[in-house]
């Protein structure tokens, strides 16, 4: 059996989160930048799950409450994120409808599901390959920010469409719920420690080969 590559935590070393310096975790703080040193992010899975639950709870009001209201000559029309997308679709602006659907509806949902899956894998409840999981993690961190686009659209419309009785746009509480979902899923991704996935893999390989033969490299 091939010996696995050495891990920093085997030797009580930690890579600093902020500056990347390798230092003994017993020092407590990074000698280079002063950041706190941890072998693993503390309570990573618990914190990630907590943020995910909060995000999932807000996901419902974020999608059923209107995010803004437009009044045109006294005609008041509230619209949710989904209605905004449908409107583009009806006007045959398909690419933009798809962008909104992916950024606002799919990405938050994918992030919540993917991070829950990662938490399950990190605690050994499911056993997929860590390479795949690593890629999922990287993907969720990269894409999460784009969900913010609808919040910016609301802010832009509110700033631009201020024509007194002719036409105005005002924000509605749905926008707050939606912004909450985006920020909470970002915090969830930041709290998760991908190294736990590899720890779990090493643990499984160690137990798989308990009647271990002596290493012949």
């Amino acid at each position, binding site marked *: 059996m091939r010996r696995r590559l050495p891990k920093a935590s085997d030797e009580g070393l930690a890579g600093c989160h902020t*500056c*990347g310096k390798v230092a003994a975790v017993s020092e407590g703080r990074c000698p280079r930048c002063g950041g706190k040193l941890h072998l693993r992010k503390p309570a990573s899975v618990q914190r990630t799950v907590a943020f995910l639950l909060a995000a999932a709870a807000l996901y419902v009001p974020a999608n059923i409450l209107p995010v803004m209201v437009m009044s045109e000559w006294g005609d008041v029309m509230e619209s949710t994120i989904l209605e905004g997308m449908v409107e583009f679709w009806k006007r045959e602006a398909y690419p933009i409808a798809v962008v909104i659907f992916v950024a606002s509806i799919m990405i938050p949902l994918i992030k919540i599901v993917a991070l829950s899956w990662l938490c399950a894998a990190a605690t050994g409840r499911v056993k997929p390959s860590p390479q795949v999981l690593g890629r999922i993690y990287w993907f969720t961190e990269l894409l999460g920010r784009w969900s913010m686009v*609808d919040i*910016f659209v609301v*802010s832009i419309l509110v700033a631009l469409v201020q024509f007194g009785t002719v036409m105005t746009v005002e924000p509605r509480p749905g926008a707050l719920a939606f912004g909450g979902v985006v920020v909470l899923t970002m915090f969830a991704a930041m709290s998760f420690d991908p190294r736990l996935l590899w720890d779990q893999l090493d643990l499984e390989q160690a137990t798989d080969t308990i009647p271990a033969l002596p290493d012949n490299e």
Partner: protein
Amino acid sequence: MQRVVCHFCDTLHEAPAVPEGTAARCLRCGVVLYQNRPASLVRTTAFSLAALALMGIVHGFPFLIMRAGGMQTELSLYRAAHELVKEGSLVIGWGVGLCTIVAPLMMACGMLYVCTPLLFGRAAPGARVVARWISLTEPWNMIEVFLLGVLVSLLKLGQLADLEFGTGFWAFAALMVCMAAAVAGIDRNELWDRLEVAGE
């Protein structure tokens, strides 16, 4: 020999210097460990400076100008955040301002403050604190997302009213490119190695 830890899988590696323009990758998971970017300090300094200059233009000129019913409104970064606050959406208003005004400004100023003295082999006072703040702020800098928001809004309002691009829009697009180039210009490990060598 200096050592480096993969932040993704915790594998410990020796860290030899790599040729300019190349990156060292983790043996186990393949994530980039550190890079040697050509002329990194000069590039980061120059792009941060350009980004700051562009921010001046972005805040001085409107993005979009909209005309309806004989009236005219203008969109700027400040108004996008401020109108929300005025309408009573304090939290979102401040959030938008944080992601589009405060975070980019802090990053550009911070990179300039840290990298310029390093060009001469010195560390500015408090450079370590500033460098930590840069990495904390980075995920909240969302100018590229705001740009997409401008385009979506444009399509949304296009049939309702008369819209016109302003100078601010083009400056903002250029700002996005400069910020991305400044951030990509320097490797985190390299920056901190240089700070460590320069001392404080």
